[in-house]
């Protein structure tokens, strides 16, 4: 296995609100190696986006605060870095694609200007050279008539096209890691497939590692090599993608996989699609113990005593569940 590129260790990002401190991310460990695609899955509000935003310190501080943990980028902790040191890493080493292509581009500048400004900042290109590179990037993400469209404003593009622009922008400085935060959620289904295909193409061409955040298990199955499942601000299971789908160990992961609709099965068996009962718990002063316990069908009294740690069960498969230790708190 190649060396880790990004190592998130015991990250805790909390938000101060009027009702108390929201523990949006509460002890997350994620490792991403050079060139691999890691899928981060979980329901809305489980802390996926906050984890991603914390890596480049893009959360609003205040009210957000990285309380604890380390974010090691090639062995160097990003959390204590000064703003200008972090700016050298943003886009150059770690780039991001966001969830909402409709609002992620500045309406008053042409897309060319917005892609070129990153190039001029990091690659020290001249205005002209940056424009040429920009046109080249737009061609790569399959925007027709790139040399004309580079002078168009965001409102002249559709949602899918804007997401292509965002991908071109993110990849323009050849980052080593691309964090894609639900890049297809806001798009039409047909466009979603195109964008995922484009991301796969770009990965084949640039060879960067990808942290793909999504709540769609299907997307993960197709694109990721390794999957991290998050629940209520914590990682509850992590495994290679085939292993996770073949042998999910955590009751939450099992529920997630069972809730994927299968068009072939539905037609023959007429069975109702299974859902996980209940909702993600509130993250203000969470009760001690496993956070999934209130929704878990295997919950036992011991679950509510201590938060189970993420344990390796062999073959790179890690689970945070009391069942793995024979019902005893670890």
């Amino acid at each position, binding site marked *: 296995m190649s060396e880790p590129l990004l190592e998130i260790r015991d990250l805790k990002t909390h938000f101060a609100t009027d009702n108390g401190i929201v523990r949006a991310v509460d002890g997350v460990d994620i490792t991403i190696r050079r060139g691999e695609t890691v899928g981060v899955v979980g329901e809305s509000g489980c802390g996926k986006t906050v984890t991603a*935003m914390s890596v*480049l310190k*893009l959360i*609003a501080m205040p009210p957000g605060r990285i309380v604890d943990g380390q974010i090691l980028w090639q062995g160097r902790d990003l959390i204590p870095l000064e*703003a*200008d040191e*972090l*700016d*050298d*890493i*943003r*886009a*150059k080493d770690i*780039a*991001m694609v*966001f969830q*909402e292509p409709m*609002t*992620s*581009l*500045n*309406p*008053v500048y042409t897309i060319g200007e*917005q892609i070129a*400004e*990153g190039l001029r*900042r*990091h690659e020290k290109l001249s205005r002209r050279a940056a424009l040429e590179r920009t046109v080249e990037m737009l061609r790569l993400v399959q925007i027709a008539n790139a040399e004309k469209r580079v002078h168009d*404003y965001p*409102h002249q593009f559709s949602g899918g096209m804007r997401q292509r622009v*965002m991908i071109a*922008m993110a990849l323009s400085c050849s980052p080593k890691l691309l964090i894609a935060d639900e890049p297809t959620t806001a798009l039409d289904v047909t466009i979603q497939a195109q964008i995922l295909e484009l991301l796969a193409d770009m990965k084949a061409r640039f060879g960067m590692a990808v942290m793909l955040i999504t709540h769609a298990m299907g997307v993960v199955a197709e694109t990721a090599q390794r999957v991290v499942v998050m629940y209520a601000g914590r990682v509850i299971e992590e495994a290679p993608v085939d292993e996770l789908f073949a042998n999910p160990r955590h009751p939450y992961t099992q529920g997630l996989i069972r809730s994927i609709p299968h068009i072939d099965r539905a037609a023959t068996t007429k069975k109702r699609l299974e859902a996980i009962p209940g909702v993600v718990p509130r993250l203000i002063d969470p009760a001690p113990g496993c956070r999934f316990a209130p929704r878990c069908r295997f919950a036992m009294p011991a679950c509510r005593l201590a938060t189970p740690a993420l344990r390796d069960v062999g073959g790179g498969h890690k689970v945070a569940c009391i069942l793995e230790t024979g019902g005893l708190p670890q």
Partner: protein
Amino acid sequence: MGQYLLKRLLIAIPSILGISVILFTVLALAPGDPFEELATNPNVPAEVREMLRQKFGLDDPVAIRYFRWLAAMAQGDFGFSFASRIDVGDLIMQRLPTTLIIIGLAQLIALAIALPVGVYAATRPYSIFDQIASTFAFVGFSLPPFFTGLLLILVFSIQFDWLPFVYRADIEATGWRWFWEHVRQAIMPVSVLALFLAASLTRYVRSSVLDVIRLDYVTTARAKGLGERVVITKHVVRNALIPVVTLVFLQLPALFGGAIVTEQIFRIPGIGSLLISSILANDTPVVMAVTFVSAILVVLFNLIADILYGWLDPRISYG
């Protein structure tokens, strides 16, 4: 763009005509007579007054008087002031520069204060700086110019005797001394107006920047590693200024009205005091001219605001 401009100007003509009809009718219906003071003067026989009224056509029906006024107006003739005995056009040209300088300076100073303060406060919401700025803005906004004006006069003219409190258009000096005297007498009225304008503008700039700073594209800009200064000036302020510019231009004509009070306090011989004195003297041609010019300014600045809006925001297209 040229076509749009032409269309807007053509639309402006009927609205300006409508305004002029209303203004003229209201003034004609208003009680009072420009030759009132002649009536109380025993040396002027009643026949002379009648002759004057006939000479100026004051006894004709309103409609005829209106069209006479309109025909003269179309040729650039604003009429004749009964009180000052000179052409209204000349009278306005005598008074306008002073008002323009006072208002223009006040607006520039207000912008120079409000923009940096509002932006800086918004980038650090609820910080000490923000709270001090907000408090000052609130105080400045709450104190009317007639109060701050009198306060400044009391302190700087009466107490310390540093600044003159009567504005004089005819300063008998030349060169630097002339310039210095003008600056000295402009300090207080300009500060009073600028303070009031800066207060409301600061609040507006701050809230506009706060609205923009949380948007997704600002996060995108930060993710590019541009540095906070570039992110704020290039991506945030540029967008936040769109509504601010519109507001400033829409407010400019209203400023002329707001300046009336300040001009009265400091005895500035500007448009505002001309309006007041001509109303008191029943000098209808002057009142009509000044209000009509302000109406044209409102229409004109609305047009400028619309054009600037489209220039600042590429999403707006002119069709």
